[in-house]
């Protein structure tokens, strides 16, 4: 107990001396902090918060611990693999720091379980997420709640910390971020003329989904549903019902043959035909022969094992597979997957951590790359590309976790958010203008919000009793009456249109829309989530309906100039 007091005193003495006031110590002690994401950066942030004297910390994370986290997430151990990060982190930090009061939610931060009031109880939010979508969401909620958010990120040797207070500083959505890779590749590139090995890997993942997975319309190969395994299987069952084991093996071989023939011989041949018609591409495709396929079908079972493939996938220096090997591994994996499918009788999802799935995609991408004269990748690199694996280091996270918590302390000591810095950690030192030295951690002045940013300029906060107010009242009394807007459409982010202005000439009020109008906000579950509002003049707004029992409908623009 003595030790505990000593530790606590040491912590507060540091803050008091660095910031030159006792007030800061009190503020730190009282402030509730929300930490979203307890991964690499999150673990470091949590530790730094607790040992900087923060007592009340709430964690939100929906992920479980995996083996590859253990090189940096020091709160987790190998026996924790599979457990919830938020729960384990809470337990561990409370052991290390007995006076802290950490609470944890295993949930998506975008869940409606976290209403605006939830966010408002915190002095600041630290965002230690790994994806764009969730970051955008937290950025938006913090803007609605008008609380500062400290956005962090780390990739390999690089990292950054960005303090944000919407309306006063540049926010996370001020600058549009690049979309995820896959969506940018045109369908015809994937189907007919891959240019890079990444295109081949994406194609191979789509192939996996065609055969075993959920065939979505967005899949560029969606017209190949005849080759869904469930379809191929029902095809053969109806034919005969003779001895079962023989049949299984025959069916496997036949299916492998059909699939290979279709996707690696027939399809390539037809692409070749297409190419002949155009003058540009003169190079011929390297198409596997039927003999090669038949050879592969024999004896692949003895030649490969899951253990061998697993060993290979962990070796970054393994050589790229020859087309012969790729062909054999493809058949081997296809057979394994067929069996797995038969046993479970349910769809299989591609998982880059599953050796067979990964080897399947590696083999398929290798064959395709070879055919198009592209240099293929080995299974280690395919795993990185297919799983969008981002390299991560404990040291980078330690730096980012340290910088962000110190910035938070500066904010609590009275510095406005716009007077803090955007911090950048770089791998190679960068020369500093007007200084004689180079920097690896460099401060950047925080800019003002971008003019066009909706989050920074056009947020509508609605407070009402969601169980009583109808959609009609929200539109008519709120948006039109109180804000004098002329809404053209209002919709949720999942695409549910709750209001559309009637066209003058075709005043059709469909039964469904009138039904929506008279329902309450709560009945349609519209409260506590961001809504898109498009004004008749073409201006976009974002709105948030905050539920409060028994209050009259009030609607306000948060940033009124």
């Amino acid at each position, binding site marked *: 107990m003595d030790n505990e007091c000593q530790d606590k005193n040491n912590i507060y003495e540091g803050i008091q001396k660095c910031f030159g006031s006792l007030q800061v110590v009190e503020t730190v002690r009282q402030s509730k902090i929300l930490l979203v994401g307890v991964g690499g950066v999150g673990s470091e942030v949590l*530790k730094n918060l607790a*040992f900087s004297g923060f007592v009340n910390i709430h964690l939100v994370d929906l992920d479980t611990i995996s083996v590859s986290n253990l*090189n940096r997430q020091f709160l987790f151990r190998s026996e924790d693999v599979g457990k919830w990060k938020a729960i384990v982190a809470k337990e561990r930090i409370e052991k290390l720091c007995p006076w802290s009061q950490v609470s944890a939610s295993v949930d998506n931060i975008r869940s409606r379980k976290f209403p605006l009031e939830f966010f408002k109880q915190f002095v600041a939010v630290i965002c230690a997420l790994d994806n764009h979508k969730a970051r955008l969401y937290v950025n938006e909620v913090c803007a609605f709640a008008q609380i500062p958010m400290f956005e962090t990120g780390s990739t390999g040797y690089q990292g950054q910390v960005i303090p944000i207070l919407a309306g006063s500083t540049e926010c996370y959505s001020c600058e549009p971020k690049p979309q995820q890779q896959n969506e940018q590749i045109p369908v015809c590139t994937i189907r007919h003329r891959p240019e890079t090995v990444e295109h081949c890997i994406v194609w191979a993942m789509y192939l996996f989904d065609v055969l075993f997975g959920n065939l979505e319309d967005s899949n560029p190969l969606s017209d190949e549903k005849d080759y869904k395994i469930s379809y191929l299987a029902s095809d053969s069952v109806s034919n005969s019902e003779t001895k079962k084991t023989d049949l299984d093996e025959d069916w496997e071989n036949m299916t492998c043959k059909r699939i290979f023939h279709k996707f690696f011989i027939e399809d390539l041949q037809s692409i070749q035909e297409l190419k002949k018609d155009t003058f540009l591409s003169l190079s011929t495709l390297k198409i596997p022969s039927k003999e090669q396929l038949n050879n592969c079908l024999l004896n692949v079972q003895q030649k490969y094992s899951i253990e061998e493939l697993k060993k290979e996938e962990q070796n970054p220096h393994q050589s790229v597979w020859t087309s012969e090997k790729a062909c054999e591994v493809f058949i081997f994996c296809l057979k394994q997957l067929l069996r797995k499918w038969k046993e479970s009788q349910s769809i299989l999802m591609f998982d880059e951590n599953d050796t067979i799935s990964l080897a399947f995609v590696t083999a398929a991408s290798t064959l395709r790359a070879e055919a198009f004269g592209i240099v293929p990748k080995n299974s280690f690199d395919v795993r990185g590309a297919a799983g969008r694996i981002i390299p991560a280091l*404990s*040291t980078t996270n330690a*730096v980012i976790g340290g*910088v962000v918590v*110190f910035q938070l302390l500066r904010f609590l000591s009275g510095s406005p958010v716009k007077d803090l*810095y955007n911090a950048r950690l770089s791998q190679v030192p960068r020369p500093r203008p007007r200084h004689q030295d180079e920097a690896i951690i460099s401060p950047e002045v925080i800019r003002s919000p971008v003019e066009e940013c909706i989050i920074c300029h056009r947020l509508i906060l609605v407070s009402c009793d969601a169980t009583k107010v109808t959609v009609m009242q929200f539109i008519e009394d709120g948006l039109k009456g109180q804000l004098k807007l002329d809404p053209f459409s209002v919709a949720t982010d999942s695409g549910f249109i709750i209001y559309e202005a009637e066209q003058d000439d075709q005043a059709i009020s469909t039964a469904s829309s009138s039904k929506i109008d008279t329902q309450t906000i709560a009945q349609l579950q519209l409260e506590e989530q961001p809504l898109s509002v498009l004004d008749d003049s073409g201006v976009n707004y974002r709105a948030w309906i905050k539920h409060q029992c028994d209050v009259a409908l009030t609607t306000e623009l948060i940033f009124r100039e």
Partner: protein
Amino acid sequence: MSATSAIYDRQIRLWGLETQSKISTSKVLLYGYHSGLLEELAKDLVLTGIGTLVIGEYSGETLGKPTLVNYLGQDLEELVKALRILNPNAQIHTMNSYIEENLPGRFEKGNDVQTLSRLVETRAFGIFGLIGEKVGSPVGLSLDRICRDNNTLFAYVETVGALGFLILDLGSNYTYRSMNKSHPSSKARNIANNKSQVITLDDSDEEKEQKSQPSFVENTLFYPTLEEVFSSILSQRSSQKYLIFLTFMRQYNEQCHANSHPDVQEIQKQLEMFLQLHNIVTRHSELQSLYNFCSFMNVEMISVSSCLAGILGREIVKLISRNEKPIFNTFIFDAFACTGSIVQVASRVDRKRSRQDEADSIVYDI
């Protein structure tokens, strides 16, 4: 190997298997105050997969010991236990238990420096880290000398409130490889690959073989000793306020005899005398910063330690892999300014030599 590959997957993707296996056989000795800084550094190294880590701390009652924030263990034994849980494969010992187990009989009782000196002389450790100078009786300069004499890479780290310092002495002949971007044959190769031009190369077959292998240049750096660094700070007119403060603080701590921590005004008065004594002229704004720094004396902030340890941790990986230029030779972190910068503090002769040798070093094509 398979299980460990899975754990280190995210960093192997960055620095490769070769570096990872070098890390797993590396031996590092850390010594100094059992501070948050020590724990942070040890934690980062152990997570990264270091082979052997031995940790020692200043013995006896240390006068004027700073206010420290450690969290993994109350004492070194506890810390070692906690670190072993983080990585059961690593060899982690306190200095005392390491000596008992590995070098029985060879050590008589001596003072800290004598013990360390014998340990460094075994040349078992590639890297030595000094975590905070000992208040009252500094050991940094002598330990640096011992490390230099025994080809042991030396790092000195110190945090003072919101400031962090890291000074490396990697000896008078530190070599590392770096990718050669302007290598003439690699240029020719690029053009040949682009097929935009037909080039006749004498050894075209060899060229083809090397296609996937990037070429490396061997570089050499000449580090000044810790002593040279400190003497040059005071002799140079343009020394940064941070370095002036570090030198002052070291001197102040050396003379510290009081058991209790003095108040800021007293330290500031001492600072004024120090500046006068060494004829250091500062601008008004710099003087103001120096006064502010005085209130940082003797306290540790975990966020600053986390940062500084992260930077040193990544330098240590560089020292192990020898594939990148390490910090040459001083790193300064200011948490308020949110800046971590690298400055070259050295005697003029050394600096000149190192630049020249960097330019003239022999090119190896691997």
